């Protein structure tokens, strides 16, 4: 049967990369079909904004059904998805893969931290001889960061002038809400160590825009945001794309191959309807893959035919290679200075209002640090909405129970703080995804097998993070309460655990060592584009999503230009 609508472009996935691609292409007048593996999802209707933990089963704690807690917006997923396994190669370190099954993907429950990569981050090899340079520079992406930030709506206005930590041009960013009590205190301590602190850049709008309400400084963003103040593709990009009349969306559509024509161009894709189990093929003039980095590689590698025995767009053999995550570790502390402070409203915009950009570029240039790349610090604390963790405060109390315990609970509430380091990982040959030779998912599609090994660069960095956190807690007159271990090997989070998985189809200047060119266009298949985190050749400490969005915007515009010229 011939499909009723002839499409110009099929977009696979509706998260950061797919959402932005569909938005740009539909606005540019192309007929777009979006295929999303998960179910339809409407934050306006489903978000439990003001619900208390007491209304949730088990006071909202994590369970295998909802690994980040009952109210976390993730649908049908998390570290594992029912009937859709992945494996870790025997003998390797574990890789953890976070996947939701919903329209909008991980943008529905992400952490919203939106940092620009800096000029050094695009040319890391040139600076220290490790990893690879990007085929583009900061200056080439900067105008697209500007445009993306204007649509997304991001805090962090101000001109800081910090090294390799670009400011946005004046007028783009919104003001970050004023710091909370513990954030004022932390800022002082960091500055005493000579470390500058910056206002948080978060994808949470502070003034109404494009039919979205400004943040009202209550409720937890991890549940999603029914008033559309935080950025989710489901509230910010997909509705205006649909309004053009150029976008159709099919949900519950699990794509598993790119179908190739005899002319070496992509014809379309085949998917399984997750509800009926039917296999369906659709065609278009071009295909955009944005199913999340590793899943995009899975689709390429599973698209085998006589001409492409190793998968589509894989003549370089690098599809699935150079998988990266962010280096992560954390520590917490109890700070007596914060005890017995009066009640205050610490909700704010849910996430932190400050962060600590990497401060050691000069030290690294002088080779004074035992690891080559930087990390930034994310912070937590305050009098937040109580959940089950509140019971731990009784451990500080000298009244174990009975009269007097309430007073002690009040006294200690809000006196614990936490720090998380988020650092750059350098791509290496030991970290990659391939097709598992034996195991298939419940649809019969071969699954991914991950290989993972941290190098000394990451392990050294994790050790430094922990030591920094311990020092800052000590300077604040506090005691470390978790995250004691300073052996980097033991302190470092598992691969994938920070949920910044990127790489697997990197961009480059050379078709022999990369999957796509600097436009996200497959070297081998000119009408096949990749617009998710798969294309990143390196993974700087700055959280990747703003860059994924900006690259997707730039490259979808290139696709539209090429289509207009008849080049696809």
């Amino acid at each position, binding site marked *: 049967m011939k499909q009723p609508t002839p499409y110009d472009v099929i977009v696979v996935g509706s998260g950061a990369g797919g959402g932005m691609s569909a938005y740009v292409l539909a606005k540019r007048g192309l007929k777009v079909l979006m295929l999303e593996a998960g179910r339809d999802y409407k934050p306006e209707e489903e978000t439990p904004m003001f619900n208390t933990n007491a209304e949730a089963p088990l006071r909202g704690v994590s369970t295998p059904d909802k690994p980040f807690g009952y109210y976390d917006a993730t649908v049908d997923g998390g570290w594992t998805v029912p*009937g859709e396994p992945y494996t870790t190669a025997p003998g390797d370190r574990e890789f953890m893969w976070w996947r939701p099954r919903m329209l909008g993907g991980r943008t529905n429950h992400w952490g919203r931290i939106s940092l620009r990569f800096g000029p050094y981050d695009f040319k890391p090899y040139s600076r220290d001889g490790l990893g690879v340079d990007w085929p583009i520079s900061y200056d080439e992406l900067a105008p697209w960061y500007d445009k993306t930030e204007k649509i997304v709506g991001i805090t962090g206005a101000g001109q800081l002038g910090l090294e390799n930590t670009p400011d946005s041009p004046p007028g783009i960013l919104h003001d970050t809400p004023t710091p909370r009590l513990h954030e004022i205190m932390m800022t002082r301590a960091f500055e005493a160590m000579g470390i500058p602190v910056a206002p948080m850049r978060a994808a949470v709008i502070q003034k109404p825009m494009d039919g979205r309400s400004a943040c009202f400084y209550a409720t937890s963003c991890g549940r999603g945001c029914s008033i559309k103040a935080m950025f989710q593709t489901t509230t910010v990009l997909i509705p205006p794309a649909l309004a053009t009349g150029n976008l159709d969306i099919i949900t519950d559509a699990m794509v598993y191959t790119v179908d190739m024509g005899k002319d070496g161009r992509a014809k379309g894709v085949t998917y399984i309807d997750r509800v009926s189990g039917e296999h369906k093929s659709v065609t278009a003039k071009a295909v955009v893959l944005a199913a999340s980095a590793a899943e995009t590689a899975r689709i390429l590698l599973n698209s085998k035919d006589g001409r492409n025995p190793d998968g589509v767009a894989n003549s370089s053999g690098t599809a699935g290679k150079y998988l990266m995550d962010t280096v992560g570790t954390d520590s917490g502390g109890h700070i007596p200075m914060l005890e017995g402070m009066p009640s205050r409203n610490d909700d704010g915009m849910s996430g932190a209002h400050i962060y600590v950009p990497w401060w050691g570029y000069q030290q690294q240039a002088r080779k004074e640090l035992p690891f080559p790349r930087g990390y930034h610090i994310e912070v937590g604390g305050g009098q937040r909405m109580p959940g089950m963790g509140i019971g731990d405060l009784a451990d500080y109390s000298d009244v174990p129970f009975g009269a007097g*315990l309430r007073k002690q609970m009040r006294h200690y509430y809000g006196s614990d703080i936490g720090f998380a380091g988020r650092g750059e990982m350098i791509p290496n040959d030991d970290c990659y995804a391939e097709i598992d030779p034996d195991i298939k998912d419940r649809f019969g599609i071969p699954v991914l097998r991950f290989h993972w090994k941290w190098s000394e660069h990451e392990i050294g960095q994790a050790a430094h993070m922990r030591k920094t956190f311990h020092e800052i807690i000590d300077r604040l007159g506090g005691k470390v309460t978790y995250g004691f271990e300073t052996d980097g090997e033991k302190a470092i989070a598992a691969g994938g655990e920070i949920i910044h998985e990127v790489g697997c189809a990197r961009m480059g200047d050379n078709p022999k060592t990369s999957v796509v060119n600097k436009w996200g266009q497959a070297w081998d298949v000119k009408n096949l584009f990749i617009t998710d985190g798969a294309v990143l050749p390196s993974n700087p400490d700055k959280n990747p999503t703003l860059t994924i969005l900006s690259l997707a915007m730039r490259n979808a515009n290139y696709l539209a230009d090429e289509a207009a010229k008849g080049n696809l």
Partner: protein
Amino acid sequence: MSPYVSKIDRRTALKWLSAAAVTLAVAPTMARAATYVKTPKGYGTDPDMLNPTSPWDRIMTDRQLQLTAVLTDIILPAEGEHPAPSAIGVPDFVNEWVSSPYEQTKSDQKVILEGLDWIDAEAKGRGAKGFVEADSGVQMAIVTAIAKPDASAAHAFFKRFRHLTLGGYYSTPEGFADIGYIGNVPMESYPGPDATMKAMLEERMKAIGI
């Protein structure tokens, strides 16, 4: 104290029963593969967020529930306008927790239920009809003894029980009012800490030299 009356209404209880009756397919386990195996009687991976339910059967006996009510209120007695845990359904929460089908709460199930039976027996050993019926002096003596940090099972029970009581209590609006959580209200702009509080912090920072 009059007997504890569960704060769960009949409608909610029926909802649990019907949800639990739905048969759940168990995903095949695959060697060395990270897949999801459904927890039978769990709330599932896509629950209705706006109408939360915990669909599992409750396993506490009435005696255990009564013991729970007495003990939660000994741990956090009512004070002024702040109600006792039993007045706002915390014992039902403890029952929900120990009855949960999830792995994480399995160890608590054993610790708490055995602990409740133990504490009842302990009261009998001290001449009372049971812990619920014991006079306040006996109750306090037992709880004071198990609250002392040591490696005993009785202290481990106390710690977990207290954790559940406090978590269950302070996560409610009544708990918020007591501990001083004043968020979860929409505001036009975010005020941050007031000048007095900032001045207090300033003094404290000065005192430690930052």
